[in-house]
């Protein structure tokens, strides 16, 4: 548990600076762990972030919401230090809404503010990059889909034109050329656009242009029931269906003051660790495949397939979709199945060590993975890199350890770290995390006691809110939910870790060769869908 004394010192400093902070007591949010809500005057928005930075707070997430009926906007930014989260809120009027940017203090806030600007029309003054981000050409620049007066159907053209005139950064000079890639890529992967400037094979600059898979998730969430929101959250990013469904359910449960049964918490932990292992196995194989080391790709995909078949046999779905429901879980575990899972853990541990021994001793793989795609600790900290990307570059935050929630509050979570910041480090962090997850699953199975797997739902009061924070396989997921009347969702905002990890890719590819881009990209493996929403 964290030492929360720093908040007093911080409040004192803010007081001296003349920033008035109004702590707001939200009973539902306290229940879920260590979170506090502070409200500041909109004039102090940017100055608060300067003091937060000086105090060593990490920027976590940012989003807005509009009070129904052309009401004012709530703008939120979330910060964290030592496992304690501060949700900072300010209220601005509907006429010409604007705020001073926090992105010039925290680079991590850059794309988040651009997203809020596109979706709400809130102008962030002083933002160094005021180009559109989530918006392409599906709606015009004077419409803002998340405003309450914007109809969910919008007014799209029969064929939405391509976003031709996006002002990419240009490079000029002898021998400099551009490579546009995407949105449709060569492999079986999600769409997005990458614009390279290169000299010879060397990458001078990379600019990402995402937003192609924007599906209006935040908008179509409004008005849903809790069950329906859990299903939607499970499809924010298909590879993180457990992580996102858990974060959304955690937020809804806080808002509704529902406590899940201990057995459900343990089962959620088992699902989440199974999801982490499945994805890490896939990624480790794919990283090797991108440097043409097919042996490892075949072995890792084989292990992944066996693992997914167990998911299907025991829990009824290969990717565990819709296993987490508001109040608990949908799929229980029989005694026989939990024994067979235990045996499988031992088999995977042995198989993995054999494959990894072969991989570890391979010099051609070392040649390609060591020193390539280097991300310094400073950059990782500036962008707030999460999960294996952060943990390979000195950012050791892990919500399971630093802001533990059930069932992780009952076990000792060992945070896997590496310190070289290269592709190899991101590969080895994943390996360590698989081993840690195997141990966690074993612990959770031991602790399983007979009991309910779902608590009865109770309709939350209108306006109640919750903040779900879960360590997904890519890193910390932060999900905000607010309820309307009649058990309906008023606002849903899921912050996938990819939102913070994508910008690190633009930096870590610099001075690498263009042919190494695929392996650099795979070592980060950001979610397009989770980013674009």
């Amino acid at each position: 548990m964290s030492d929360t004394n720093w908040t007093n010192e911080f409040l004192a400093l803010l007081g001296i600076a003349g920033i008035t902070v109004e702590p707001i007591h939200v009973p539902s949010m306290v229940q879920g762990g260590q979170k506090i809500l502070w409200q500041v005057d909109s004039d102090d928005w940017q100055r608060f972030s300067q003091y937060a930075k000086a105090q060593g707070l990490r920027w976590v997430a940012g989003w807005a919401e509009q009070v129904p009926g052309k009401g004012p906007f709530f703008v939120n930014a979330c910060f964290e230090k030592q496992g304690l989260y501060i949700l900072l809120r300010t209220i601005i009027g509907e006429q010409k809404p604007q705020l001073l940017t926090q992105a010039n203090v925290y680079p991590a806030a850059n794309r988040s503010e651009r997203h809020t600007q596109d979706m709400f029309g809130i102008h962030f003054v002083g933002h160094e990059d005021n180009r559109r981000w989530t918006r392409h050409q599906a709606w015009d620049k004077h419409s803002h889909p998340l405003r309450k007066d914007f109809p969910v159907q919008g007014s799209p053209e029969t064929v939405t034109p391509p976003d031709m005139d996006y002002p990419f950064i240009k490079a000029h000079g002898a021998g400099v050329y551009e490579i546009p890639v995407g949105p449709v890529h060569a492999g079986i992967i999600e769409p997005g656009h990458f614009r390279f400037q290169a000299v010879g094979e060397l990458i001078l600059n990379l600019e990402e242009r995402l937003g192609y898979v924007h599906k209006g998730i935040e908008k179509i969430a409004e008005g849903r029931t809790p069950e329906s929101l859990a299903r939607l959250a499970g499809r924010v990013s298909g590879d993180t269906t457990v992580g996102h469904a858990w974060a959304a359910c955690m937020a809804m449960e806080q808002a509704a003051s529902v406590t899940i049964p201990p057995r459900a918490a343990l089962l959620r932990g088992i699902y989440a660790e199974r999801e982490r292992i499945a994805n890490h196995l896939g990624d480790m194989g794919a990283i090797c495949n991108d440097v043409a080391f097919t042996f490892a790709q075949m072995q890792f995909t084989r292990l992944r397939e066996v693992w997914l078949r167990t998911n299907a046999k025991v829990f009824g779905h290969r990717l565990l979709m819709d296993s987490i429901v508001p109040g608990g879980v949908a799929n229980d575990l029989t005694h026989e199945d939990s024994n067979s899972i235990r045996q499988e853990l031992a088999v995977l541990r042995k198989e993995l060590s054999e494959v990894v021994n072969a991989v570890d001793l391979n010099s051609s793989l070392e040649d390609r993975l060591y020193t390539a795609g280097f991300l310094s600790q400073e950059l990782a900290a500036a962008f707030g890199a999460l999960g294996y990307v952060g943990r390979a570059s000195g950012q050791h935050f892990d919500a399971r350890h630093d802001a533990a929630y059930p069932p992780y509050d009952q076990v000792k979570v060992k945070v896997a770290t590496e310190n070289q910041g290269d592709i190899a480090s991101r590969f080895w962090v994943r390996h360590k995390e698989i081993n840690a997850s195997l141990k966690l699953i074993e612990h959770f199975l031991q602790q399983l006691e007979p009991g309910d797997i779902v608590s009865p739902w109770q309709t939350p009061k209108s306006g109640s809110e919750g903040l779900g924070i879960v360590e997904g396989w890519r890193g910390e997921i932060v999900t905000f939910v607010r309820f309307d009347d009649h058990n309906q969702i008023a606002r849903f905002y899921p912050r996938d870790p990819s939102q913070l990890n994508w910008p690190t890719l633009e930096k870590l590819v610099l001075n690498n060769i263009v042919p190494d881009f695929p392996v650099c990209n795979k070592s980060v493996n950001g979610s397009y869908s989770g980013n674009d929403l």
Partner: protein
Amino acid sequence: MLNIIKKIFTTGVVTEPVKFPTDNELEQLGITLKQRIDKKFNGSIAIRQVDAGSCNGCELEIHALNNPYYDIERFGIHFVASPRHADVLLVTGPVSRHMQTALLRTYDATPNPKWVVAVGDCAACGGEFGVSYASCGAVSNVIPVDVTIPGCPPTPLALMKGLLGLMG
């Protein structure tokens, strides 16, 4: 190196002698698929996968078709890097409005004769996302579709069965 060779030999060929009960079905399915591909496409078909707005769930299962258990290439089905090389477009996702033009252009870039398979519930009917300011919904709202493979996501076996439907 010895480690690699040892692991390769101790792993053996997982593709054929499979222990999972469903794999009889898999093998049966593969052979029928291969016979039809032989007859209709002279031995092989080239598939270009297009994610037009999916959550990435379908992609994971399409990927699995290439793992050593399914090894779909042995039945004459292979994935290609360009629509110019493709007989079939395998399209996932509700079509996001931001991907609409890209999908239309990919379709136009695919030489005739061509087939379109819409993969997953979203591609089949809009799924969890439906039609909105940001989504065109089902793939058939944007380009002609020959076969749909429902599922969220469809399992690798369902994908193989669905491709069989294309040949039928």
